[in-house]
């Protein structure tokens, strides 16, 4: 056997194929991440021009356990980089990790599901080549991302050493979760399960470092839970606050070892099989499984339950933090920090308004995801079987759209009730539950508009359905960075979320809600009308 005939033969060819498939996706993602980091650094620098204002902002975060839990600790409050990149470090690391998870699943398990891997495996492609090439894609993507981010951060005026440390801390998180996703891809019997499994690990790692930083941590460093979390490692590189290079080695060694585990699993596994085998199902359908609506619910319910649990936890966290906002906001800079970002009346309400609007954006992602699933039903030819029965296109699509609409409402209610209840228990005001729940529901019409726009894309140009996510990311960037960049109001107004009053705590008229709801219905109707006219692919 020669070197070219081992399990890895064909890796280079597969790598080229993957690069060709991702030639738009990868550059787009990498530049969005790097640009967001740079824009955010620039904007914070403008916001806190003096050393004193930076120290005050840093202390605001460091003096609040809830904020430390969300963002992490600022280890050098006098460092512009450390203060401005605090939000980007942990959250950004999670986003980079998600990108790696998606990339790994896309090039391994998803290819097996589609049957394309079988075609490739029958050629002179080794058993380990798919995993090898996917790993190469991930290493390549994360290194490019790290270097580009570092360059852009230097370009906006941050120190070179810290910029490189920051870029590499992202890459460390990316590599670690690429390796975790590789193991998940070997264990699961479908791409969907693999992504879900890796995402659960990611959420757990984020939660670990939240506990480690806040509950067990001090000004000197975090407690042990942060040290067993790859997201914790990314933050402990402490860019611009001492640049702890050796921590990067921890990420690297972890990635290599977990990657090796994936390789061992891959070399022992049958193509298409997983450690968690598919169980058999019932020999006949339950009586209620008789309509396109029931089918849609069956297809979407698993994802919905996952979202619901996430939103309840999110609500509990928001409520917990909200009641302690008053405690740490007795210094004037902190006050300014929060009021700058939120409403005007009442600091707790201002905090709730920010967090609930974040919940609204997140809930709209659920709606978009549901419509994406509907689009996948058509693209993967399963819609054909339904539409060949006595089911109209409108009924078929409405099954999913109603789940998107009511599911989004349920998620917003869940986060509102959970936040309100936590806050009510701590403040002793029972009215808080309904007040916060209603404030959360105020986000619903705006979230519906995003769902409706995705339906319109499906109706008019199903091949461009990814525009749903593009629009979503655009609105997030607009909401997060627009005010910091002083963009003109009409640009900010493009986002439906810009028209939602910052509830609770401000007066609201029904007009914006009515208009947003009407817009959502109208756009959705246009989408359905187009769907009824075009060819089913």
């Amino acid at each position: 056997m020669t070197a070219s005939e081992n399990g890895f033969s064909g890796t280079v060819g597969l790598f080229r194929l993957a690069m060709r498939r991702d030639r738009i996706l990868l550059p787009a993602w990498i530049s969005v991440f790097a640009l967001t980091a740079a824009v955010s650094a620039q904007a914070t620098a403008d916001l806190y021009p003096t050393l004193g204002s930076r120290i005050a902002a840093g202390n605001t975060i460091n003096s609040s356990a809830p904020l430390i839990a969300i963002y992490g600790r600022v280890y050098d409050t006098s460092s512009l980089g450390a203060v401005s990149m605090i939000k980007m470090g942990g959250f950004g690391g999670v986003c980079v990790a998600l990108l790696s998870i998606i990339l790994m699943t896309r090039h391994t398990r998803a290819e097996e599901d589609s049957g394309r891997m079988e075609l490739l495996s029958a050629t002179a492609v080794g058993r380990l080549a798919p995993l090898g090439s996917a790993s190469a894609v991930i290493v390549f993507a994360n290194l490019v991302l790290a270097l580009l981010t570092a360059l852009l951060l230097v370009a906006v005026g941050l120190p070179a050493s810290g910029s490189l440390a920051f870029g590499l801390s992202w890459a460390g998180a990316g590599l670690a979760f690429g390796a975790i996703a590789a193991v998940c891809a070997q264990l699961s019997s479908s791409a969907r399960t693999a992504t879900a499994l890796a995402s659960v690990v990611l959420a757990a790692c984020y939660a670990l470092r939240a506990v480690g930083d806040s509950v067990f941590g001090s000004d000197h460093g975090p407690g042990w839970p942060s040290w067993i979390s790859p997201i914790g490692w990314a933050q402990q590189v402490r860019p611009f606050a001492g640049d702890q290079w050796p921590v990067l080695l921890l990420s690297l060694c972890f990635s290599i070892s977990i990657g090796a585990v994936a390789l061992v699993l891959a070399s022992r596994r049958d193509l298409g099989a997983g450690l968690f085998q598919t169980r058999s199902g019932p020999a006949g359908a339950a009586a209620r499984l008789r309509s396109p609506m029931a089918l849609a619910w069956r297809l979407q319910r698993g994802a919905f339950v996952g979202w619901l649990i996430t939103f309840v936890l999110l609500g509990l966290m928001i409520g917990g933090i909200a009641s302690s906002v008053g405690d740490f906001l007795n210094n004037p800079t902190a006050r300014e920090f929060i009021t700058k970002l939120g409403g005007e009346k009442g600091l707790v309400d201002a905090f709730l308004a920010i967090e609930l609007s974040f919940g609204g954006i997140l809930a709209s992602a659920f709606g978009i995801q549901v419509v994406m699933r509907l689009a996948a039903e058509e693209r993967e030819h399963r819609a054909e079987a339904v539409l060949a029965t006595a089911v109209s296109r409108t009924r078929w699509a409405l099954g999913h759209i109603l789940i998107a609409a009511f599911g989004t409402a349920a998620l917003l209610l869940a986060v509102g009730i959970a936040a309100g209840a936590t806050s009510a228990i701590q403040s002793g005001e029972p009215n808080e539950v309904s007040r916060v729940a209603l404030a959360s529901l105020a986000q619903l019409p705006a979230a519906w508009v995003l769902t409706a726009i995705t339906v319109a894309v499906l109706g008019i140009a199903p091949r461009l359905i990814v525009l749903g996510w593009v629009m979503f990311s655009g609105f997030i960037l607009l909401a997060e960075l627009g005010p910091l960049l002083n963009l003109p109001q009409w640009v900010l107004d493009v986002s439906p979320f810009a028209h939602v009053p910052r509830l609770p705590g401000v007066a609201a008229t029904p007009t914006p809600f009515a208009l947003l709801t009407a817009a959502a219905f109208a756009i959705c109707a246009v989408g359905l009308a187009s769907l009824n006219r075009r060819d089913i692919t």
Partner: protein
Amino acid sequence: MPAILVRELVKTFGSTRALDGLDLTVQTGEIHGFLGPNGSGKSTALRILLGLVRADSGTVELLGANPFKHAVELHRRLAYVPGDVALWPNLSGGEIIDLLGRMRGGLNQQRRSSLLERFQLDPTKKGRSYSKGNRQKVALVAALASDVELLLLDEPTSGLDPLMEASFRQCLMDESANGRTVLLSSHILAEVEAVCERVTIIRSGRTVQTGALADLQQLSRTFLSLQLAGPPPEGLGQMAGVHDLQVESLPPAVAGSTDAVTQVSCQVEQSALDGVLRQVAQVGVISLNSQPPTLEELFLRFYADPTTGPTTETQTQTQTQA
């Protein structure tokens, strides 16, 4: 009134002309074979009949109505089996069969269980675990277990093993005996020959031949191989309906007889068979071997010729000289 009536049907996808003036008539109660090579437009035609795709021009009538406008009402009366069956990965086969049947308007439970047995399909497996053939069976059971007037089947046996194909043919015969109309798209000729009464052959989105199977088989030729006791009769090669005549004189040693023997082979149209046999009988037949006409042979001739299908006239002109 025919169950399906298609006239001058045109459908283009971008610059590709998938259907280019297709004509198709399926009479109520018949099993109609819909033949054509890969990419000839069979699936597109079926998708138009289902109202999934809109026709650019031409008329389409299905059970007396426009399939695009009246899709839902029509679909209560028909069942469809796609060529490439996609199932929901996390629903079991049994769930899918029931769901599709119920959404169509009802399922015959008795027939469902007898079909499951006939096709030896395990309904408890999840969609993602079925092989191609078993996915096909799920769709077949879902379609055949419904009480519908019309079955639209797009290459329904691709992926089935020969035993299952035989079961499927038997099912089709039963369906037909119950008065159901079947449009069977296929490129497996044996299947079409076994079950269809009439066939339509298309190529590049156009109908090249349509008619009763028996008539088409007459268009095809019986292959004859004979040993004659003397030279072949005068003018055998010039007879209408005789093709590819080849004559070879075998020396007595080779033939294993004392007299000279002539080896003759030719292809003979159904109409000329009687005349040919009478003529050769006068010379004296030592042995006769015949291969019956198959649609396959006709089919191959249709697709080998890039311009037109064979007709009796053109054959007469191109017949081979002895």
